[in-house]
């Protein structure tokens, strides 16, 4: 029964993602926006891996997106590499940066980790802005359309489908990762670092791994962002974008993949709905974070679980977070 349900859910997801362009057929702006939502979904899942499952915190995640985007743009524009090669390479490069950023995380947790990642989130866009000779500075870079083995994704619909396929692929990869040894280690570290270490988990190694894997997928999203939007500038990756993605994780539901979809879709709609009022979209995003933390700490996805079953609580329900407190 469980299996049937799971199959149904994944089929429904595939179907919905594939149908989006058909529903919005006449409206290319909507298709473009839907593509952006898919990018947010990838980022949210990647950050959820770290925050929701691993119990770590990063409030500078947009910097990984920036690194992925600029790596991909520089590889294709300056070195002439094809897109299909630049995509994984920018993922791996971002993972390397994630590894370096993750190193201090071995020692830090909670507030100080938040402060450290905040510094990272503020520094990278600044650095990219100043490194004009490579990144183009304020003018930014204009990467080409994605193309795979000569096939160019030159319309919004084609690009959307490329994103949809990659999003589904990443969802599947992350689900598998979580079901395996690595995922279980992440959750164990979140629950208690001491007991995780006592059961033979190399806490330092897995913490760094968490950052690297999360950065890898964010870097992939960055590369896709660069070629999907076709223009990137350091200003696009401001620290408020990091906050937005974190809000998506929280609002949708920590430690939940469907939650990541939900959070990304809902919050990505806010700027679209309030395009002419930048203040209002800030307020709405902020308020939704505050309300969720105060009344539904496990996210919107929790409503469904509360309604249906009491039998299977997610590991660490209610107490799912960094650190241990009396």
């Amino acid at each position, binding site marked *: 029964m469980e299996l049937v349900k799971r199959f149904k859910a994944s089929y429904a997801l595939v179907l919905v993602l594939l149908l989006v362009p058909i529903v919005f057929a006449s409206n290319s702006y909507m298709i473009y926006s839907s593509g952006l939502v898919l990018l947010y979904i990838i980022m949210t899942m990647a950050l959820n891996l770290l*925050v929701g499952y691993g*119990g770590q*915190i990063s*409030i500078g995640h947009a910097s990984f997106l920036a690194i992925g985007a600029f790596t991909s743009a520089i590889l294709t524009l300056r070195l002439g590499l094809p897109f299909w090669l630049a995509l994984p390479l920018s993922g791996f490069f971002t993972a390397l940066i994630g590894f370096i*950023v993750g*190193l*201090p995380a071995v*020692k*830090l947790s*909670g*507030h*100080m980790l*938040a*402060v*450290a990642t*905040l*510094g*990272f989130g*503020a*520094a990278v866009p*600044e*650095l990219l802005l*100043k490194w004009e000779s490579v990144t183009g500075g304020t003018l930014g870079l204009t990467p080409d359309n994605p193309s795979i083995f000569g096939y160019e994704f030159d319309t919004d619909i084609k690009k959307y489908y490329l994103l949809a396929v990659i999003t589904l692929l990443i969802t599947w990869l992350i689900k598998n990762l979580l079901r395996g040894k690595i995922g279980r280690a992440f959750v164990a570290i979140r629950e*208690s670092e*001491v007991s995780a270490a006592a059961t033979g988990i190399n806490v330092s190694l897995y913490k760094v791994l968490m950052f690297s894997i999360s950065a890898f997928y964010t870097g992939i999203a960055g590369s896709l962002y660069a070629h999907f939007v076709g223009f990137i500038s350091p200003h696009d990756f401001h620290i*408020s974008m990091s*906050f937005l993605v*974190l*809000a998506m994780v*929280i609002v949708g539901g*920590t430690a939940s993949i469907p939650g990541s979809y939900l959070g990304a879709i809902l919050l990505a709609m806010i700027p679209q709905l309030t395009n002419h*009022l*930048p*203040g*209002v*979209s*800030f*307020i*709405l*995003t*902020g*308020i*939704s*974070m*505050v309300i969720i*933390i*105060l009344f539904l*700490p496990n996210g919107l996805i929790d409503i469904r679980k509360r309604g249906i079953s009491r039998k299977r609580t997610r590991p660490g329900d209610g*107490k*799912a*977070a*960094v*650190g*241990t*407190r*009396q």
Partner: protein
Amino acid sequence: MLAQQIVSGLAAGSLYALAALGLVLIYKTTDLVNFAHGEMAMITAFFSFTLLNSLGLGYIPAFLLTLVFAALFGILVEKIFMRPVRRAPILNQIILTLGLYMCFRGLAGQIWGFDLMAYPEAVPGQIIRLGSMVVTPNQIFIFGVTLALMILFFCLFRFTIIGLAMRAASQNMQTAEIMGIRIGSVFSATWAISTILGCVAGILIAPATFLYPNMMGEVIIKAFAAAVLGGFNSLPGAVIGGLLLGVLENLIAGYISAELKTSFLFFLIILILYIRPTGLLGTKQIKKV
């Protein structure tokens, strides 16, 4: 040249130190990093601006009224938002202050607009020349205020009964409660004082950065760096960290490259957290399992 760099560094550094003082105070007592601190300071600065401009009050009455507003604002935020998560996981607390950060930023933009506005200096006056160095009276004033506030709150923490209650609350909430300390009042008082500190910082910083919703953006990152450098739970540490940061930043801008200032800050934060997580003057906190 070098002396001037150091003096300008100290002037900038005292702004960072001022902003860091409020952060440290909250962290010391409630074990929480308030990521909305800068935005709360910005809101109070806007409030005083409205008093100055729309109501035409003088600088001093406007300043005093703003202090009252700041205290109420801090208490309100603590009572409505922070109290329910006092015992919640740290992650939830961090996210809540980030949510407040976004709310306040958006709210300020909606109420006062996103344009840059000039804000009067506390002590206007001609620049003073000391040999080859140049200082403004305002810079000297800010430096003095920072030191005075640091000493005041250091003494409050060390020698008064309120300070004792704050220290007890930060060590162990439950035991403190058993000992008859009203945790709720202590936390409210802490938030009120911290917001007042932020308010003073905001009003003194506004002339340097102009008044606009993102005015604290860069300052607060540096305040974080200052607090990390000095030790996140030490008030003198925050001030020394701030001043040191201001001087270092100016020296780097002057002798190496003005463009690497912020990246340098990031590496500094990471490096200090990695090598000496307690900062220069902080004390080690033992994590209980």
